[in-house]
């Protein structure tokens, strides 16, 4: 009788483990399969490539994560990134490039200027979102849906305003390319600057989330807005603060992404928000609000990038990749819902 109970208990525990960690188990199996098919996947250079690709998406995800912790979302992140990238890219084009957007710029601008321009635009768009959510009490989904289209329209108008028509903004100066794509030599391999920038952003956001009043208020509002208000938290100011931080992060991500891809067009940033949101959900940031960690966001973004990279590495049909990624996102949310129901 005792043995049967122990066996049932073990079976339950195993089932619980398998269900709660289904995503990580699938990822583990995927990686093993990739390595079996092509052992070259398991190399330091591949790992660095994955981290480099994850860096700009990761910085974007750090911004989006704050909004998800507030029990909201941001569908405009990708398009805002595109708009910011277009503006910053236009300011870092090579002065020897004949078709540059600003022929009046005859010397390379200090990189701080396009970075600040990118951050300013990111903050403006995010403040619009924040105002809608904090002051007008609109749902973040709807506000960001509108801002997404506004940002896309602004990007298209800006890129179309070039003398030569709507052409991709490219041919950047060497200083900018080296700043974004350079690397530190460490032993036998090189550590890209992008990974360092991502690490710095993660540390700063971790400090904001865990060591500042804004961070504590963010979790309080996401956990229980009424209780937070009763406890004396200024809800509007805190929400606006979170959106401000997100705007800064979007601006930085856009500046770096422009340098990484070295060509910005109207399609830049398309679906980046979905990747950012997916990364957050996979990393354990709950849509219920009030739950999330920076290491979780980082792990989620890297996991998503590993999935993207593995599927590309295996040569899986790109259209099929969309289906697989979509299923993975639904699985991540389902596990989150299951944890909530189990707690209830």
């Amino acid at each position, binding site marked *: 009788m005792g043995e049967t109970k122990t066996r049932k208990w073990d079976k339950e525990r195993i089932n619980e483990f398998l269900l709660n960690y289904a995503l990580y188990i699938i990822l583990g199996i995927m990686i093993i399969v990739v390595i079996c098919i092509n052992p070259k996947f398991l190399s330091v250079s591949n790992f660095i490539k994955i981290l480099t690709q994850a860096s700009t998406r990761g910085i974007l995800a750090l911004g989006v994560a704050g909004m998800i912790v507030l029990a909201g979302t941001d569908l405009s992140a990708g398009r805002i990134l595109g708009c910011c990238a277009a503006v910053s890219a236009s300011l870092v084009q090579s002065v020897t490039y004949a078709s540059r957007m600003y022929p009046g710029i005859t010397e390379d601008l200090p990189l701080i200027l396009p970075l600040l321009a990118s951050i300013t635009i990111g903050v403006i768009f995010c403040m619009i979102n924040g105002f809608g959510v904090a002051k007008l009490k609109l749902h973040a989904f709807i506000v960001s849906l509108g801002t997404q289209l506004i940002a896309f329209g602004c990007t298209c108008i800006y890129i179309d305003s070039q003398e030569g028509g709507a052409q991709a903004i490219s041919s950047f100066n060497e200083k900018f390319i080296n700043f974004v794509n350079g690397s530190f030599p460490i032993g036998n391999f090189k550590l890209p600057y992008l990974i360092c920038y991502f690490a710095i952003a993660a540390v700063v956001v971790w400090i904001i989330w865990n060591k500042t009043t804004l961070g504590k208020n963010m979790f309080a509002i996401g956990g229980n807005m009424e209780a937070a208000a009763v406890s004396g938290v200024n809800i509007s100011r805190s929400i606006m603060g979170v959106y401000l931080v997100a705007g800064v992060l979007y601006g930085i991500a856009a500046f770096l992404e422009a340098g990484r891809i070295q060509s910005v067009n109207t399609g830049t940033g398309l679906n980046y928000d979905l990747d950012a949101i997916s990364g957050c959900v996979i990393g354990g940031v709950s849509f219920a609000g*009030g739950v999330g960690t920076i290491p979780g966001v980082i792990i989620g973004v890297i996991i998503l990038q590993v999935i993207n990279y593995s599927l590309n590495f295996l040569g899986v*049909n790109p259209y099929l990749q969309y289906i697989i990624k979509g299923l993975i996102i639904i699985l991540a949310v389902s596990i989150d819902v299951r944890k909530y129901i189990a707690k209830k």
Partner: protein
Amino acid sequence: MDDEQKVKAEAEQEENQELPNTTLMSMKENVYDHLNVSLKTMNRVIALLVIAIIVFTTFGIWQAHIK
């Protein structure tokens, strides 16, 4: 004395009954509150999704390498 104790006990009981109601009222309304799904159903959904991911990934690899 017994009557007093009974009254006290009844008053405590009423207080305890009120507490869960207050707790319920102050429970947050979140994205998942409207869900009326059982744990068993969610377990089946997760299992189904896992199978779907494995099937599609296997099909994709087969298409890319073996076909």
